């Protein structure tokens, strides 16, 4: 009779992490295939069509990148916040705040000329950061659950943008429609020739990823983030400014999401419009981008591109398969389920147990409790 036991694995090898993450993604796509089947589509031909439409030509690839940019901006910000154990679920609202900030500059601050776009980016960053400020200060000062406050801020941003486009900012030219006037030409981001991809936001996003990677690994603030994320208790004891770090990190995280909002209005829509059309759930999907990246800013380049692909497929699903865009939510949810379900594979390894186990009755089960418990405590901390 063979006996096995689970040993905690302090640092899973990167190859295994990649394999398990890919496995989780494939499992989610398989389950999604069954949903395709339920709607009368052969999953294999459906996926073939989806991949052909998104990766088959330059236009398809540029569409994937267009969806990747906001996910990358929000995702890398969330990586930073999550490293601090700050559960920022509010990227969605921060995107909208950034979009509104940029639109305000584009519409109501004329005469900036070539400084218009930089001013829009600055306004978007500040507006996004401001949107993250309240949950951050409430969390740092009063211990109010940031999960619920950041989420409530999403709804507040949603209805505020609706209010703006229906009320004070409603366009003169927009008869019967709820959106602002079109931005002036100097407020439009240049597109990569032959595509609909605004390249400056892509550059900003990649630069931000590199910056956050540098910040986390090479600076004092990054060190403080890592220590507080490991143990807020120890950090307080060491005299680290919990409030200061929380506000700085949230400012950067929420500001990054604000930049994503700028990219959407200045690069894609060229006006402020219905909030549901500005962010198609990027803020929520960015949570998956960050979790798949497992705290590594550079990994978001990969994970954001993957989810950008899922989003681009969402468009194709509507056109080619006649399935609603909400399929992306289904796939996102499934990916999340499978990622965390696969977590034990990374945390523990199966080992042949020594010949004479100490606790006879318990060791008979392939799951000696102690080791698992120690790992579970690590997970919980």
């Amino acid at each position, binding site marked *: 009779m063979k006996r096995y036991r689970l040993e905690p694995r302090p640092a899973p090898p990167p190859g295994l992490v990649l394999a398990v993450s890919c496995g989780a993604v494939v499992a989610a796509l398989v389950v999604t295939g069954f*949903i395709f089947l339920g709607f009368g589509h052969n999953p294999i031909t459906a996926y073939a069509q989806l991949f052909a439409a998104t990766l088959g030509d330059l236009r398809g690839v540029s569409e994937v990148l267009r969806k990747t940019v906001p996910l990358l901006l929000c995702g890398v910000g969330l990586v930073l916040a999550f490293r601090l154990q700050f*559960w920022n*679920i509010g990227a969605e609202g921060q995107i909208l705040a950034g979009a509104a900030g940029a639109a305000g500059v584009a519409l109501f601050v004329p005469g900036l000329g070539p400084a218009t776009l930089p001013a829009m980016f600055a306004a978007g960053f500040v507006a996004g950061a401001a949107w993250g400020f*309240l949950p951050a200060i*409430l969390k740092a000062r*009063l*211990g*109010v*659950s940031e*999960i*619920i*406050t950041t*989420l*409530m*801020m999403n*709804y*507040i941003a*949603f*209805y*505020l943008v*609706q*209010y703006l486009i*229906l*009320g004070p900012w409603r366009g003169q030219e927009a008869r019967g429609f709820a959106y602002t006037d079109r931005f002036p030409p100097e407020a439009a981001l240049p597109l990569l020739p032959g595509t609909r991809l605004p390249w400056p936001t892509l550059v900003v996003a990649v630069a931000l990823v590199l910056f956050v990677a540098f910040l986390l690994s090479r600076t004092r603030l990054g060190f403080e983030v890592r220590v507080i994320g490991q143990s807020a208790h120890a950090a307080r004891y060491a005299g680290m400014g919990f409030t200061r770090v929380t506000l700085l990190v949230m400012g950067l995280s929420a500001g990054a999401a604000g930049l994503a909002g700028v990219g959407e209005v200045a690069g894609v829509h060229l006006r402020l419009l219905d909030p549901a059309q500005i962010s198609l759930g990027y803020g*929520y999907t960015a*949570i998956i981008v960050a*979790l798949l990246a497992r705290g590594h800013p550079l990994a978001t380049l990969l994970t954001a591109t993957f989810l950008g692909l899922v989003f681009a497929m969402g468009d194709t699903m509507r056109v080619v398969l006649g*399935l*609603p*865009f*909400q*399929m*992306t*939510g*289904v*796939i*996102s*949810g*499934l990916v*999340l*389920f499978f*990622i*965390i*379900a696969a*977590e*034990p594979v990374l945390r523990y390894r199966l080992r042949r147990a020594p010949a004479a186990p100490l606790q006879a009755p*318990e060791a008979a089960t392939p799951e*000696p*409790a*102690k080791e*698992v*418990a120690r*790992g*579970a*405590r690590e*997970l*919980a901390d």
Partner: protein
Amino acid sequence: MELESWLISATARSLAFATPLLLAALGEIVAERAGVVNLGVEGMMVLGALTGFVAAQLGGDPTLGVLAAGLTGGLAALVHAFLAITLRANQYVSGLALTIFGLGLSGVVGRAWQGQPLRNPFRALDVPPLAELPVLGPALFQGQHLMTYAAILAALLLWVLLFKTRLGLSVRSVGESPAAADALGVGVYGLRYGCVVFGGVMAGVAGSYLSLAYRPSWSEGMSAGMGWIALAIAIFAAWNPLKALWGAFLFGACFHLAFRLQGVLPAEFLRLLPYVATIVALTLASLGRSRARRGAPAALGTPYTRGER
């Protein structure tokens, strides 16, 4: 007289708005008392709203809808329970996944039912002797749905169950100190599973109130963040079913106020009122740290493994 009739109708309408919030909050309170956070309330609620509507539309009976919605919520919560309790996964992520998945799936599946009126919705009813009371009658006992009274009754029963019975003591001990409870022979895993699934059933039923009674139809995302507000009520009420009664009524009044002030203030502006109120309420609950922490189960959000500690 005018003020009085306004107050009466405001109370009645607030009660209607409060019903789904109360049902969902009660379920979450039970789950969290057992130590498991479920951020999937919004997702379970919207899935309950859809399946409730579909079952009632096909079966021709709203009661069937409530049953289907409860079953759906329970099944969805079972997924969360498996991940959170058996696999010891991150409860916050699992719940979030449930919400994202639920909103997505209900949008995909529900498209065929979008905008259909329900053939046989729940009828509002008057409670025979009490409805005749001068002020309280119209405020509390006229034109409400049976589910509203069921929700209030559930709050009372759950309070008794949690604080006055052996089972309630076991549930609370599992949330406070699972290891100690386990040592005393309490089935930690079974109780946690039971409480999480109960929470899901309640969230599903809460969703069915939306699509069967409150607005007898299905529209995408009709839970509109109510699941999140229910989570906030659980905190605000310090995990006490009786206090949740007041919390839900307060937020119900907020939704009603937003509805009533239309025309005075822009509608979009008012619709964010309940969400602002949620943040305010949570902040108030946290002022004076001891008060906020008092009700929180000590083992909330942490997985338990037998043999530990």
